[in-house]
């Protein structure tokens, strides 16, 4: 019985971590699908989302639930702005160039974070409603562990509707399928790319808020690791594919938690797990679980 409750606890942890990876991974995968760009700064956008929420709750009279809506919106606009400044001028440039710009943007945001927010870790103000522990048949679980997967599923359903049922969503899919042809068909490329960045950053910020509720320690460099790992999740699932990103996120989240749970001796290697998984996937099936076959264009 004891074993079962512990296993259940691990599962709950793994699922909520996986949901967070999935939310961040969607941003990577959508941008990659359209622009073929690893948005290195995505993890730092996630960090900004958490900090904006932090300041919103502590320094404005706005109620916390409203901050939880406003902060991702602001973050979404920052993501949109980032694209306009650092990526848009380079859209026709070689891919390496835009990748370097992305790395530069990532470091810029991190260090700007250190300058503005300070390098000292901060405690995320978790609203009391979310910060409760409930007992469930002998297993005590934080409410957040339930909220995270629920919110994630809701957002995914919404996103799925948006992408598959609306005109804008159709334009996004068309751009991802064939950029040149789609842009010849009268699709407003700039608008669609802006929307993509907005959505990706919005979701990352929502993920960030829940991350803060789960692991309430804020640092300007906190986005790097979740960012890299979520990208890996996107690659595992097949980059460019949203369902794949979610699957990859869950595989990674559950895998990490289970690694530590089942093989405690490897706890120190937890951060390496994702990268090992990445390299295996790249060697075995570079297109990922759900990805299309990548053809080399001449």
């Amino acid at each position: 019985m004891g074993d079962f409750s512990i296993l259940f606890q691990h599962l709950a942890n793994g699922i909520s971590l996986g949901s967070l990876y999935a939310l961040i991974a969607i941003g990577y995968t959508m941008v990659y699908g359209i622009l073929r760009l690893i948005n290195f700064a995505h993890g730092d956008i996630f960090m900004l989302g958490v900090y904006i929420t932090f300041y919103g709750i502590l320094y404005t009279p706005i109620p916390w639930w409203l901050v939880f809506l406003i902060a991702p919106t602001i973050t979404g606009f920052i993501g949109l702005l980032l694209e306009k400044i650092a990526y848009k001028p380079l859209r026709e440039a070689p891919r390496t160039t835009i990748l370097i710009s992305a790395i530069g943007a990532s470091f810029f945001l991190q260090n700007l974070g250190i300058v503005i927010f300070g390098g000292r870790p901060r405690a995320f103000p978790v609203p009391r409603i979310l910060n409760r522990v409930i007992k469930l048949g002998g297993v005590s679980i934080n409410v957040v562990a339930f909220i995270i997967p629920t919110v994630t599923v809701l957002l995914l359903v919404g996103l799925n509707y948006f992408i598959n049922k609306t005109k804008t969503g159709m334009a996004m899919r068309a751009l991802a399928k064939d950029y040149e042809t789609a842009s010849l068909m009268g699709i407003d490329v700039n608008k669609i790319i802006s929307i993509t960045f907005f959505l990706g950053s919005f979701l990352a910020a929502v993920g960030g808020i829940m991350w803060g509720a789960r692991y309430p320690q804020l640092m300007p460099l906190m986005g790097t690791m979740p960012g890299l790992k979520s990208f890996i999740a996107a690659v595992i699932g097949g980059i460019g594919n949203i369902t794949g990103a979610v699957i990859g996120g869950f595989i990674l989240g559950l895998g990490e938690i289970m690694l530590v749970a089942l093989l405690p001796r490897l706890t120190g290697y937890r951060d390496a797990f994702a990268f090992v998984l990445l390299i295996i996937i790249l060697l075995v099936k570079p297109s990922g679980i759900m990805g299309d076959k990548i053809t080399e264009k001449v």
Partner: protein
Amino acid sequence: MKSKGKPSVILVVLLILTIVGLFLASKFLDSYKIRIITLSGIYVTLGLSMNLINGFTGMFSLGHAGFMAIGAYTVGILTMPISMKEMNFFMQPIVPCLANVEWGFLPALLAAGIVAGLAGFLIGAPVLRLTDDYLAIATLGFAEIIRVVFTNTQSLTNGALGLKGIPNYTNIWWSWGVAFVTIWFMAFLIRGSYGKAFLAIKEDEVAARSMGINLFKHKVMSFSFGSFFAGVAGGLLAALLGTIDPNMFRITLTFNILLIVVLGGLGNIGGTVVSAVVVTVMMEALRFLDESINLGFIQLKGIPGMRMVVFSMILILVVLIKREGLPGKTKRV
């Protein structure tokens, strides 16, 4: 056709001038400035080694910090006096086969390069089949794995505690000596048939392959050589600082080198040398930004961040302005 004699005369004159300059610097400057000059030499080697991979061969590797870590730890473990090792490894004794070794600096540096180069070969062989961005993320991943492994192998690397008391062998002559050897080697390599093959791969992989260039062999070679020099530079850095720990070798370090390579021009030896010196000196000169006391409206006391904000802005601006000037492969047609 260019006459063969002329450029080499200029180079010899430059070389002599630099040596005289270094000599004068080591005689008349204070130890802080000498240290910066020494550091510049190390960054020249680092910049060139990354330029070989990213600039000349057109791959996009972000694994430099990992190879530097390998080199730094090799030198640290091999050169550290036996008594010092006992003091360092108090949590867990060092593996017996390394406990009683104390090598000279030159063999240790060579070992650092060889171990890093071998690691580059082993890592490169499977990963170099990937293209730009996948390669970038895979090599970044390897650098992270190396860091995590070094943090956990207590009896080999002393884990998170790091190594202290590595003999300070590195001086201005070692660092610039290695830098000159690297410059010479790169120039030699690029002028030869291998260099032609590297450039061909950068310009167009498919065309290069159909001209009979063995893509895999040349990519792995370029990657291994680059790793070799990164390892040597890592070793120099370890012996300059005297103290190393796994967290030094984060992606930030790779970022600095990338900045040097981009500023100097991908695939440009002379430019890389100049930008390595300029960036190193600026890193020090702009240190005041981090310690900036009061700007009236904002208080930034001892915040390490402003300096890197400036540097990342420079990187983005250079990329935005140079745009097409930066060589790369896949263009949208």
